[in-house]
């Protein structure tokens, strides 16, 4: 398998791997490292790549496990000051500010969710995988996923409503 063959397999989902890693690890740099690590692992096992039923699902599972390991490892226990990803956007109207503010809120609320729910929301609402695929990736049954997803969505909704009404009610 040549590099270009490998890239054609990997390119469609490498962004998804990165976003999943970022969801779990929060920092962009850490997520980049994790993605790179996953890609390198895949590249090393490129001989077996044809035997995998679903390379994408396999990579997502790998990413999930890798990020869990990262979070558990000692390295993650040190408090790190992460340069939050400031975006150089044009200063707009107040509405724009408000919008981005509430967008940030969703991100913050999502970071506060339990890891499993974070994962499921990421895979379903952001990456739009079918429940069957998610079940395969996370090695869970579909019902459990639906329950977790429902909980997560309700939590996000409630917290958003609270922040939205803060100072009003």
């Amino acid at each position, binding site marked *: 398998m040549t590099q270009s063959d490998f890239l054609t397999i990997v390119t469609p989902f490498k962004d998804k*791997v*990165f976003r999943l890693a970022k969801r779990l690890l929060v920092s962009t740099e850490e997520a980049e490292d994790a*993605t790179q690590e996953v890609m390198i692992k895949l590249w090393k096992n490129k001989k077996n790549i044809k035997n995998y039923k679903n390379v994408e699902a396999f990579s997502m599972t790998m990413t999930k496990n890798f990020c869990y390991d990262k979070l558990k490892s000692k390295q993650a226990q040190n408090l790190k000051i992460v340069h939050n990803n400031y975006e150089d956007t044009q200063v707009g109207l107040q509405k724009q500010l408000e919008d981005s503010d509430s967008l940030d809120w*969703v991100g913050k609320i999502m970071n506060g969710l339990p890891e499993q729910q974070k994962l499921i929301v990421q895979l379903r609402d952001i990456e739009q995988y*079918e429940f069957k695929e998610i079940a395969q990736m996370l090695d869970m049954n579909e019902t459990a996923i*639906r329950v977790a997803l*429902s909980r997560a*969505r309700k939590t996000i909704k409630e917290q*958003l*409503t609270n922040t939205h009404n803060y100072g009003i009610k």
Partner: protein
Amino acid sequence: MVLNNIEKLLEKYDNGETTLQEEQQLKNYFSQETVAPHLEMYKPMFAYFSKSSKEQFTKQVPLKTKSSLYYKWLSVAAVGVLIFGFFYNSSINNTDEYTQTEKELAYQQVKESLHFVSKQLNKGTEKVSYLGIINTAGTQVDYLKEFNHPLRRIFKN
């Protein structure tokens, strides 16, 4: 009518029972400028989901090709060959290939030739030895320095 539909979908959505198509419908609805006021809180949620799905991985992944592995083993092999060659060579030198008489003969020959060389060298030095005379002449000429003293005295005055 549309709103009614959306509300139904949202309820299903909250329970995690929507299909991807239905979720897409919701996303489309909430990407509009204006939504029903009591559903306002869903707007940032869906906006965030669509925004997050556009983030891309831009870092280049260094993919090492197999050839580097070959080079590694090639260098290992080269070192092996070098070491082997060295030991092989030194072991050849140690082996007794020449007999005692041959060695003696060689020794004698070397001795003779060195002797010859030293003889010729001595002849050469003999001929050059009269150059020593120049040295004695040089010392004799030294007294010419004495001239300098009176000369200096003369110039001083």
